[in-house]
């Protein structure tokens, strides 16, 4: 396959073809972004647990973006932008499902727990 055929192939199909360089960049970034959160948890590196959880989540989100860009090669050009659009729509749905479920169930737990005065009122019933 000649060089011109190769570029035509990549432009025509997209979505998954990468160079050695892009795979290595993605790999090195992923290794760094994996080791930092594991080090924080295994080495008890931080006193504040909330800060540690925030760092784990932020680095996890960054690593997901690294995978999408350098391994899956999704950008606004491949397949005339349809892959990126489907991904955006799915992320939107997942965010609604996740945040909605946790919000609703957290409030449910809080409000279904009988308050102290409620218990007293029930006790004083004739």
């Amino acid at each position, binding site marked *: *396959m000649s060089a011109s055929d*190769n570029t035509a*192939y*990549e432009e*025509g*199909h*997209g*979505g*998954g*073809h*990468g*160079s*050695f360089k892009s*795979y*290595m960049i*993605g*790999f090195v970034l*992923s*290794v760094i972004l*994996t080791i930092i*959160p*594991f080090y924080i*948890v*295994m080495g008890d590196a931080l006193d504040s*647990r909330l800060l*540690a*959880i925030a760092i*784990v*989540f932020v*680095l*996890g989100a960054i*690593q*997901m973006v690294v*995978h*999408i860009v350098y*391994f*899956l090669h999704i950008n606004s050009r491949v*397949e005339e932008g*349809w*892959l990126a659009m*489907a*991904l955006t*729509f*799915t992320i939107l*749905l*997942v965010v609604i*499902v*996740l945040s*909605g*479920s*946790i919000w609703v*169930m957290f409030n449910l737990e809080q409000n279904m727990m009988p308050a102290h005065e409620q218990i007293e009122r029930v006790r004083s019933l004739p």
Partner: protein
Amino acid sequence: MTTESSEQAVEFYVRRSPDDGEEHHHETGTMLGFWIYLMSDCLIFGCLFAVHGVLGRNYAAGPSPADLFEIDMILMATFMLLFSSITYGFSVIRMDKGDLRGTQIWLIVTGLFGMAFLYLEVMEFSHLWHIGATPMASAFLSSFFTLVGTHGLHVTAGCIWLFVLLAQLQIHGLNEANKRRVMCLSMFWHFLDLIWIGVFSYVYLAGVLL
């Protein structure tokens, strides 16, 4: 008049332009369709993550994540999946160069890393089962086994697909259909690695921290 127009209509639907129906045209639709399947899979995992977010702190007086999880084993499993992703990338690069042998060798390496990941996961699950941390023990463990088990089933399916693909490559070589299959499995494999990032950050690391 009517027969003539209906004939024209039939011809309109049946006629194919000479450059239509080529592999080139076909493959574009396949990649988009496969990506939409992966996005539906992503929604399933999104729902399972939501379930774990809701139930993940209900231990029913049973063990908590800090009692159960061995983070160094999870780190090893994470690296198995990461290595399998990069070796799959090498396989795709060899395929673009038209090198059948190289493609197969890197696919075999990918499959070995994938099976190493599965081995670690089976070890972890059987260990949990033996110490009594079964899915029946608490809501936390039910949602944990569902989420992580679903990911493990996907990796298992990916491994089976990979070995079938190796046989197809051996029989038919690097034809258009096999190239398309390699690219679809590539998306599937990298996508599973992406889901695992969510699993180890959210279920394991954040679970132990909380």
